[in-house]
């Protein structure tokens, strides 16, 4: 039975070898990377024409600051999705991280950098728990992180009694400060993206993540330490969600236990719009950034053009569906070959 199936599959592959010119394969791959990017450029051009306020330094800077937290989390989400996993817990990690980092500063008089470090590390802790649940307890990532999503959200509300914690004004450097002319969140985003790209493209960890997502059994039989890799990936996602939480708290100078509500799906959407496949094995940091930028442009452009938030949500939904549908069609075409 299997031999005929394989023979069947071989049929298409042989056709490729003989028929399909390499140029078209190459073009298809470039299109996959460039599709969303071209869409961003087109949207940017349209907004430049439609609104005189769009292409101004202040507005562009605002767009990048606005997208930074989602982009940072999306970098981690891309890594998780590449392993054919998902992390649904990031939104409450953002809340817990913000709450804890402000809390230790306000209540325990820890220094602000130390408080922020606490926030990031707590995120890492939750990520490590996610990783252990997925690898050692063999929970599906969706369930494991759905559980921690709720549990972590509960902790954030419990330790604050549901009340926001006002931080000292000097807490605002990470969110509102500048490095030269450039806002700090943009700098952080750039550094995270660079490190994320490096991990995925240049380290054994990144390579292993792609291999696991493409074929878990192949990776395992090839001697890749699959558990370690998965734990590391969830840990990184946790750290980045923690970092995102600290930035959010810093921007509003408040530790809000109900912050971060939308970051979950936004980060996943950014990753997916950027070409990460929920089936694993595919995705790039640059794609995640483009996805986050596209989402921010829709929201920014909507505001500039006085399109209601309701419509913005609707448009965003259509874009997500279109992006995933595109991914599906492309995949099916690939599998047919």
């Amino acid at each position, binding site marked *: *039975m*299997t*031999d*005929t*199936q*394989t*023979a*069947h*599959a*071989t*049929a298409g*592959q*042989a*056709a*490729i*070898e003989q028929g399909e010119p*390499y140029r078209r*394969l190459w073009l298809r791959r470039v299109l996959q990377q460039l599709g969303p990017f071209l869409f961003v450029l087109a949207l940017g051009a349209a907004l430049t024409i439609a609104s005189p306020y769009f292409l101004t330094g202040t507005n562009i800077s605002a767009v990048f600051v606005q997208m930074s937290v989602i982009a940072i989390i999306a970098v981690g989400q891309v890594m998780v999705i590449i392993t054919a996993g998902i992390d649904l817990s990031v939104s409450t990690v953002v809340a817990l991280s913000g709450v804890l980092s402000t809390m230790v500063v306000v209540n325990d008089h820890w220094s602000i950098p130390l408080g922020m470090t606490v926030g990031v590390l707590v995120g890492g802790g939750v990520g490590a728990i996610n990783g252990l649940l997925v690898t050692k307890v063999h929970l599906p990532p969706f369930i494991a992180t759905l559980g921690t999503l709720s549990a972590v959200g509960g902790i954030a509300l419990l330790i604050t009694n549901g009340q926001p914690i006002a931080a000292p004004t000097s807490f605002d450097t990470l969110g509102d400060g500048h490095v030269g002319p450039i806002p700090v969140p943009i700098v952080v985003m750039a550094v995270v993206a660079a490190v994320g790209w490096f991990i995925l493209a*240049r*380290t*054994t*960890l990144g*390579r*292993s993540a*792609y*291999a696991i*997502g*493409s*074929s878990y*059994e*192949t*990776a*395992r*039989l*090839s*001697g*890749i*330490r699959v558990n370690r890799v998965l734990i590391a990936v969830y840990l990184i996602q946790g750290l980045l969600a923690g970092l995102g939480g600290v930035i959010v708290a810093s921007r509003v100078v408040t530790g809000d236990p109900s912050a971060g509500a939308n970051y979950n799906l936004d980060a996943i959407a950014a990753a997916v719009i950027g070409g990460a496949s929920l089936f694993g*094995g*595919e995705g790039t940091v640059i794609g995640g950034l483009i996805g986050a930028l596209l989402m921010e442009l829709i929201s920014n452009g909507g505001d500039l053009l006085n399109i209601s938030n309701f419509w913005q949500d609707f448009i965003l939904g259509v874009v997500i569906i279109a992006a995933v549908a595109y991914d599906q069609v492309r995949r099916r075409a*690939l*599998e047919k*070959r």
Partner: protein
Amino acid sequence: MSVATASPTRPAVEMLGIQRHFPGVQALKGVDFRVRAGEIHALLGENGAGKSTLMKILAGAERKDEGRILLDGEEVRIGGPTDALEHGIATVYQETSLAPHLSVAENLFIGRLPTTAPGVVDWRELRRQAAQVLERLQVPLPLRARVSELTIAQQQMTEIAKALSHRVRVLVLDEPTSALTETEIAELFRVLRDLRAQGVAIIYISHTIEEILELCDRVTVLRDGELVGEREVSTTTADELVRLMVGRPLVEMFPKEPAPMGEELLRVEKLRVRGRQTEVSFSVRAGEVLGFAGLLGAGRTALMRAIIGAIPVESGTIYRDGKPVRIRNPQGAIAHSIGYLSDDRRRSGFAGLLSVADNLSLASLPQFSRVGLLRRGDERRSAEAMVRTLRIVTPSIDQRVALLSGGNQQKTVLGKWITAGVQILILDEPTRGIDVGAKVEIYRLINRLAKQGKAVILLSSYLPEVLGMSDRILVMRRGAIVAEFKRGEATQEDVMFAATGQHPNAQAQGGTSR
């Protein structure tokens, strides 16, 4: 329920001039196959002989390139599985297609449950109808039990009952006994004989010759996609059937070049795989190609996966270069220089979304990195060299492996283990589903590896391959090694007799039994 309309001598099913072509393989070369109503007709042949393809065409699961299918003398078009069922052709595959969480009764009538009102299931009627079907089979199956709670034999009976609940005229069974105990087999045979008496045409795919002799009326033998014989079971012998099945002389396809033998590299003593009752011992030396023959499910793959630590071992010892070692996982096996090329290339051989280069280095990442940073220059140079040496046909080393042909995919997987530089390479069905040209290239590679002083363990269900390429052949049956032959000592018949447990003459036991 089924009523056979044809007279007992006229063919109920005629498949005429059936051809099916896959790239590099002519799977069926104009096969004529006729089955009468009220007979049990065996379809016999080695793996890859075309049995499954032929039956899939009948079941509508595979299309034919040429040929006609006649039911009771009338030509029919079978465009898909639904067409086949409507014509009364039902197939029971090796893996059951039941819904494990539903009850037996629900499974029997899934998709056409009796209702009281639209969308409301009439449970009483369902159980009545289900009981009626089982009545016909004379099998007491628990109607309310979930399928997942049944034994394999009961699941298979449920499959057969499900087939009968359609108006079945032709029942195809694909290796139905492979997972059954002796008593369960006897029960299955009783049911099949009853159905035969009711006029159903039964096609029985098997390569266990004793079963065919016991159960069937006629037998059709396929080899390499061709019909090589049709016999009345009453007038044939096991000897004749085996000869028909393996028939062909060892062709020049196997360019075996014996290599000088060295030290013993691996020895396995009394290894018992978890969940199995049998212990296995064997050893392999440098420069040796050790063949493992046996039918599908004989336990070869499980044994090898246990050796590399991919599945748990119950007891026993593995010696590497004479020293006992414990291998807990595949990276442990690689640390002891043992590589395993999986029999399921798609699922566990290559990572299809990764490039050729990335796949080639997958088992050697420590070698191509320093403190976790990839040395991509080295990696790519090594990949370029490997693509040239193995003549992997790919537009570039950046091509995704999923887009290569089967043969080039397999060469990439083999290249992965050669890159890793393992001393002991276990090849599990390395040429399955690839074209002839690529097969020969893989045989040449096996020669080259042996000459380099590596030990190659070759698992294959394709007898000419094991016989043609190995220095020594072990035959496994039901989890145990049942025979050992030196190169040139055994014929395909000998090995097939050992693998099927069929010993018509003393010669076949010429090897040392364990």
